[in-house]
């Protein structure tokens, strides 16, 4: 069995996901992690007490191996690695909600300190695509930014939502790194430089990503799922009731292939085979795991897996030696094999017994068993139900039995459309019948597999037959074809041309909408049940399609879905969403206002801090002179000033949050404008929009969003 080769207690709390190892002097690896009170600690057991105390760095009083770095802001992410071309050691990069600091620990000096308005939720350091120098790429609110060693901004793009995780890996296998971005809208996006090449939809916020080998990478979601993708295909995934705090690729069993090491919120560490997800090793910490990293911490040439818990406990594991034969757990493989085979045998025997007993037939008197006619088959149907007085608009799933049997309960397991992973309908004993109607309200336009389990039996049964059925809910299910003619026609529209037959578009319509009879013409109007007004689709004989809706997101979804169905690689479009553009215009003016308020407040704060300094000196003077009344007065004033400062801080933080929200919606607007196009035109729109914002040319911005290009 594998045991840790070293265990450390660092006596400092560690913030989750903010752990790294850096060789700051080029030789000695140091465990570096963010801790409470806006500090970063650097554990350097190799060069004890040679550290000058100056600038940001101070020696910890509790532990001589630990130096503390004062950031004075809540740290949101950190990493270490080679950034500059001529530096001896690694550079430490620390991100906060507003700034990015690049710091040379060895020379104890800032390399650069940049303001980043979109914040830094995640950071990754390395080579991206064809860029000559390594970049520190940060992901913030809907935006990605990359800095070189001089702090110059070399990379910028937007993404669908707040970024939560980043990793660099050669996804396409062309020898160059792509950037993988996990965000809060449940998507993993792959950027080849600033071009979005792939999008994989998951069902929760993507909290961690890590590169395994070649084009394979691991991911973790906020709902406790971890898994492995090979390119855009998911290899395996598992779900736990705990949350995965940190994932890392490491070859723990020394078989030449890395395993996915996961650190969980309940303190568990496990290593899973990258092929099957089978657990090959596990261990437990007493508190939640904060980070999993690797490094040669004993300086003996062997790389160890290093796991750190939030309470500051650190354990290092060496890859298993040969004589463990890949068997890292405290159990005998033979015994397990026999046990598993016996278990299978037992299951088969039980199943066989079921058939035998069933063939024998049962006395009708024993009603508890739940005897049902053998030809019972469940019927399921999906239909769109517009809102009535009693119920909101929904998609109705009706499940019924053809005979006198009843449905005791229905369990539906589906991802992303219920609060949890399941929805249960359990009628009370008086209301049992052979038909159950389940209202479903999918919050987003995503295709969902509904795994239905229905318990069928008699009214007094204690045992029921379980019918398992899988139904697919089409992507655009919340749209009703029966249209209220009095509704106002939508003002927004997108127009684009395709080189395909209308029949293909009709096929797409039938597959992606819930149409009771199906349609045979691509000209169709729907009523959006989420309250988005009407949606109409029309196709001219020359292949020009016009989508009319006020919902720009929906238009984007429709175009992306249609393009992938028809395998269109490039698509440009003209769009006009007067309502949405109006809103965006207001937001842009608000951004300017918030900026100016921010500047004013910052100036006011500087004034106040000067006052405080003066007053403190005066008060202390008074104390030394023994003038107690003056001293009291000064301190009272100081107290008032302090209160003012606190209030101002609140205003400032509110202002900042509002600003962030606005910036996010601006970034989202760019993303939405991009989603109306496919392929190259899409990237052109995004970069043109970005330029327009940089040059603060709002008119150009709207022109680009409408026409797709800046000129004309």
């Amino acid at each position, binding site marked *: 069995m594998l045991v840790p080769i070293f265990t450390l207690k660092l006596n*400092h*709390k560690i913030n989750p996901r903010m752990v790294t190892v850096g060789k700051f002097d080029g030789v000695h690896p140091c465990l570096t992690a963010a801790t*409470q009170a806006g500090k970063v600690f650097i554990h350097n057991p190799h060069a004890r007490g040679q550290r000058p105390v100056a600038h940001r760095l101070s020696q910890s*009083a*509790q532990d001589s191996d630990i130096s503390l770095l004062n950031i004075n802001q809540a740290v949101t992410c950190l990493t270490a690695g080679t950034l500059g071309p001529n530096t001896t050691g690694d550079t430490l990069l620390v991100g906060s909600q507003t700034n990015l600091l690049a710091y040379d620990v060895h020379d104890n000096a800032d390399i650069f300190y940049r303001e980043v308005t979109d914040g830094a939720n995640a950071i990754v350091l390395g080579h991206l695509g064809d860029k000559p120098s390594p970049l520190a790429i940060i992901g913030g609110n809907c935006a990605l930014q990359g800095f070189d060693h001089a702090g110059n901004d070399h990379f910028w793009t937007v993404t669908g939502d707040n970024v939560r995780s980043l990793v660099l890996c050669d996804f396409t296998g062309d020898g160059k790194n792509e950037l993988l971005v996990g965000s809060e809208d449940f998507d993993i996006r792959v950027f080849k430089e600033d071009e979005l090449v792939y999008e994989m939809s998951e069902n929760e916020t993507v909290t961690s990503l890590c590169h395994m080998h070649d084009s394979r990478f691991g991911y973790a979601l906020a709902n406790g799922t971890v898994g492995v993708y090979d390119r855009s295909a998911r290899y395996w995934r598992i*779900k*736990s*009731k705990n949350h995965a705090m940190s994932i890392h690729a490491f070859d723990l069993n020394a078989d030449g292939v890395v395993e996915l090491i996961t650190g969980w919120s*309940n303190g568990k560490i496990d290593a899973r085979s990258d092929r099957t997800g089978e657990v090959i090793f596990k261990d437990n910490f007493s508190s939640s795991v904060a980070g999993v990293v690797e490094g040669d911490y004993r300086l003996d040439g062997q790389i160890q897996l290093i796991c750190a818990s939030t309470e500051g406990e650190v354990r290092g594991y060496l890859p298993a030696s*040969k004589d463990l034969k890949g*068997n890292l757990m405290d159990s*005998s493989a*033979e*015994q397990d094999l*026999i046990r598993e*085979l*016996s*278990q*299978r*045998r*037992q*299951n*088969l*025997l*039980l199943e*066989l*017994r*079921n*058939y035998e*007993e*069933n*063939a024998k*037939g*049962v006395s009708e008197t024993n009603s*508890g*068993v*739940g005897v049902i*006619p*053998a*030809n*019972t088959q469940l019927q399921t149907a999906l239909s769109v139900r517009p809102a009535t007085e009693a119920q909101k608009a929904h998609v109705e799933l009706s499940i019924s039995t053809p005979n006198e049997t009843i449905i005791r*309960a229905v*369990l539906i397991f589906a991802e992303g459309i*219920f*609060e*949890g*992973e*399941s*929805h*249960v309908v*359990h*009628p*009370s004993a008086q*209301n049992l019948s052979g038909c159950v109607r389940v209202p479903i309200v999918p919050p987003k336009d995503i295709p969902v597999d509904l795994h239905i*389990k229905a*318990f069928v039996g008699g009214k007094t049964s*204690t*045992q*029921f037959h*379980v019918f398992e059925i899988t139904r697919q809910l089409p992507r655009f299910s919340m749209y009703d074809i029966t249209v209220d003619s009095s509704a106002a026609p939508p003002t927004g529209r997108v127009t684009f041309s395709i080189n395909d037959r209308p029949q293909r578009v009709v096929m797409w319509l039938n597959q992606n909408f819930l149409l009771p009879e199906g349609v045979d013409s691509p000209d169709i109007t729907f009523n959006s049940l989420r309250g988005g007004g009407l949606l109409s689709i029309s196709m001219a004989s020359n292949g020009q399609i016009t989508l009319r809706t006020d919902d720009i997101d929906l238009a984007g979804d429709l175009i992306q879905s249609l393009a992938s169905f028809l395998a269109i690689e490039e698509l440009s479009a003209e769009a006009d969403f007067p309502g949405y553009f109006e809103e965006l215009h207001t937001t842009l003016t608000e951004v300017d206002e918030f900026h100016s308020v921010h500047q004013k407040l910052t100036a006011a704060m500087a004034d106040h801090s000067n006052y405080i300094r003066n007053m403190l000196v005066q008060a202390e003077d008074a104390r030394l002179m023994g003038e107690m009344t003056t001293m009291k007065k000064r301190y009272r004033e100081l107290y008032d000033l302090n209160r003012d400062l606190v209030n101002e801080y609140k205003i400032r933080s509110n202002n900042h949050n509002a600003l962030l929200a606005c910036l996010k919606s601006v970034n989202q607007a760019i993303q939405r404008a991009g989603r109306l196009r496919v392929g190259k035109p899409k990237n052109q729109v995004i970069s043109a929009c970005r330029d327009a914002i940089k040059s603060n040319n709002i008119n150009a911005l709207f022109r680009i969003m409408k026409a797709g290009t800046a000129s004309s």
Partner: protein
Amino acid sequence: MEIHLNRVDYIQVGVTSQKTMRLLPALGKKATQKVAVADHDGILTCFGMKKGEAVPVFKTLPGQKIARLDLGGAAGTPQEKIFVCSGSHVRGFTKKGKQFLTFEANLTESINAMHVSGSDLFVCASYIFNHYCDCKDQHYYLSGDKINDISCLSSENLSRPVLACQDRVLRVLQGSELVYDIEVPGPPSVLELYNKDGGEDVLYGTTDGKIGLVQIGESAAATKWEIDNDKKKGGILCIDTYDIMGDGVNDILVGRDDGTVEVFGFDSSSEPTLRFEHVLSESVTSIQGGCVGKESYDEVLTATYTGWVTGLTTEPQKAEAGPGDEVRMSKEIQSKVEALRAELEQLQVKVLQGREQYQQTSQSSTAVSAVPVFSINDKFTLCQDDASYSLTLEVQTAIDNLLLQSDVPIDLLDVDKNSAVVSFSECDSEQPNGNFLLATYRCQANTTRLELKVRSIEGQYGTLQAYVTPRLQPKTCQVRQYQIKPLSLHQRTHSIEQERPMNRLSLVGQFSFAEIHSWVVFCLPEVPEKTPAGESIAFYFHNTFLGTQLEATYCKGEGHFKSDNISTISILNDVLSKEATKRKINLNISYDINDDSVSHTLKMIHPKLQYQLLLARKVQLIDALKELQVHEGNADFLIAEYRNILDESANLLEEYKKQPAHLERLYGMITDLFIDKFKFKGQNVKTKVSSLLEILDNYDLNSLLDFFNEA
């Protein structure tokens, strides 16, 4: 002194009941012993180990479920005759498998406990005890509550049966008469003689996980020691004594229903101490020390719920190192694996045929589909320490999913051991469906046992239902129901303090003894379903959360309930009058409220509340103090109280985590107390609850007492 035992699996039989596996006595010195094990399919299997392979000696035909197995034989000869009971039959087999005895006990209920000693046969069926000698009826006793197990002390001329009864009592009999009873700290589930050759000492284990040793004297018993269940392990299912440590003193082997196997040894002061612990994944139904796998290596043999016979042996595991990278398997194991694989293949073919046939029947319009009932081992018990219910479910194959449904508001708590993914579904508490809880548990592969915790609120009663779906084709699910009673947090106790100020509720009316007993059963847990013998009865309870007490005495036409907690009386009042109205019985309810009782209850709550408030405050401070410590580099500048909090932070946090929502529950109980106090005075004070909560937020006992008196 520690020992290391290695696990070896021998065979798997069907689902087993408690105490259905025994080792036959060894023939010569240090030879391996044969194992007899009986299962729910009615099969008695006897096997021995030969070169690491289980070789059956005999196997009986399937039949009715076997509930117990015991060994016996004429006095002075080896105890190698095997006795099994199923239904109301007892059968005897020789060690060669020849049936020499069939005995019909003529009981209306199935036998659930049995003891054989010489020509004496003792059997118990729920409330009834019967003693037969040479198959002739000798003695009979009717117990007040369910009998869980039986053992018998026998000396030359006297046999003294001991019954383990659900009402937390061991009953010692002589002939048909009760000599005396012994109060034990929990409902006893198993009894075993400490010394197999005689003596007066009996070991007992309880369903809440406690173990004790009592000396059964002529006219009284003495408790020698007790082991508490601090770590909240499972209930005891089986006990044995065997010198596995090899120190000349018999050690105690214990099997629990959460799969824990323990070995207790004795130190120099003769106190039992834990020497070894191993966790199997399912209930341990039988345990015995002996030698099975290999000569001269002692082992602890266990049987589990799903029928695995597993040894924990002192034989060291062989080093598996061999040349090459492949894990080399020993020849024996290889052949075993091959045999298993071959058998699997055959089975697979058969199962495929079965499946096809089953599919075909679905074409026919007359055929019916009826899948046999699978067995579920479930337990729903109140935990005394945190006043919550624990529900454990165990199925013989892996569980696929579990649906929990409740028509009363209850809280579902997270259990660390449980790896299943829980998901709460939106539910409509209003009619027509009336669901207050709908939760699904999706289990990880190979989960055969699930443990859940449920917190109930006194006064709110109804049913909790669990729908269990195992991973077995054709898929079926079974529903189990658990009653949440109106006074769900009460537990039976042996006596109450009479000095406390008590409130009294009296009922007089035209009802029978059986009727009022059924009402009490409806209201309170741990009351036997059967109407007690005699004219009247008294039961004592205590509230596991607050420590208040309740006395219920009743007979035909009359019932009296006394409690120091006014809320308890109020709940009883509501429920009893509702029940009586349902049956159209005219009840005359009178009560006698003691105003001192309220302040008495508040004073009882006071230390708990104060402790919780202090704990909450300390926990709140921990993070801030830690930050200060980091900022300043050390904690020397803090006052001693804060330094103390920092030092103890880990313990404080753990304590706080262990009892979620404890404070809220206490607040809820105090609010109920307040409302109930004035309800009996005919006042509705619901409007004043907000000011009560204000007082609780700035808690002080005196101001609370004043508030209760003034309002």
